[in-house]
């Protein structure tokens, strides 16, 4: 039983995480999946961490102002290291990619940025791989890289302060 479970997961990870050989759309599929899961995990951590500032799960009333300020500053010092900053920069990439690529997927799912069905004549060029659709994919990569560079700049300047 456990063996079956492991082989199911291994097979899934192989097909989900290795986008080689199938072109740009397969990369979009893999990156969208990985970034989505990563952002959700970050979201959970973010909500928990900000919740700690006002007292954590045990406290359901307003804590003293000084206490919240102290925890906030402690958290800030704890997170101020290159590892977390690099992680956030990567997250900036993922958020921007997931957002713009997500818009692209919604448009594609409604058949908006795809070509029209035509008589297939050799050599076949699939209308689903339209210039518009691929353009938005590359736009999402571009914006994601820009966001990552911006984040790196912001965070590593912060470190020098």
């Amino acid at each position: 039983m456990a063996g079956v479970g492991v082989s199911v997961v291994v097979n899934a990870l192989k097909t989900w995480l290795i986008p080689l050989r199938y072109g740009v759309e397969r990369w979009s599929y893999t990156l969208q999946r990985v970034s989505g899961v990563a952002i959700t995990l970050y979201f959970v951590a973010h909500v928990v961490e900000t919740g700690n500032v006002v007292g954590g799960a045990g406290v359901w009333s307003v804590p003293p102002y000084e206490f919240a300020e102290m925890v906030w500053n402690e958290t800030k010092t704890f997170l101020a290291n290159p590892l977390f900053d690099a992680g956030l920069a990567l997250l900036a990439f993922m958020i921007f990619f997931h957002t713009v690529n997500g818009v692209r997927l919604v448009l594609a799912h409604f058949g908006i940025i795809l070509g029209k069905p035509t008589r297939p004549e050799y050599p076949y060029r699939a209308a689903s791989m339209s210039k518009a659709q691929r353009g938005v994919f590359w736009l999402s990569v571009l914006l994601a890289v820009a966001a990552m560079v911006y984040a790196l700049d912001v965070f590593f300047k912060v470190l020098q302060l």
Partner: protein
Amino acid sequence: MDRGEKGLQEVKFKVFRYDPDKKDGKGFQTYTVPVSKGMTVLQGLMYIKEKLDQTLSMRFSCRMATCGSCGMTINGLPRLACYTLIQELKTRTIVVEPLRNFPVIKDLATDFEEFFSKHRSVNPYLIRIDTHEQEKSNVSYTQSDEEVEKYLQFAYCIKCGLCYAACPVVATDKQFLGPQALAQLYRYLADSRDEGGEERLRPLSDGHSLLRCHFAASCSQVCPKGVDPALAIQLLRRELFLRG
């Protein structure tokens, strides 16, 4: 075979072998095959079967990309063996495996039962409300060029299963209908003679049949007939969301 042409003189075929009757059945076996110009992978495999090893099992029939029986994984991609030139591959060793996402029967022959039953499940025929008129009618249904264009591309499917083997969703979700069946569903939905409409769309609102497609478009990448199942699936989704 070898008439002294320039280019490759011989290639190695690394073929996946599996015999259900033997215990240690799975593994690869390598054969050396002389090549001539314009030779296909299928011809290479036939050479192996005729001259080197009669126990090799595979499926083929038309040898001209029409019957859809010779689908297999060639150098990592699902392709038709009869439609893939050895020279085109540009490798000295050609790795031939059965199609992914299909259970293997023996060597390169795979079981298409699940694939065909999904195809059947989408009612791949014209549905008319008035059956009497359909059976006894003496008029033909005329269609304009634009009406034909809406579905013709999807009607070229030869049910070779390459798209089904390429799909990352089919790999883990057996309830997903897969690119081939969904493309056929759309082919009939988009046909102006078909009156299935609602009836065709209704079963698609569940979680698995259609909505698990995330537009990885690998199906359209490998389809040998230019069917573009990814396009059909997105247009089908559009119908489901706006009309269904």
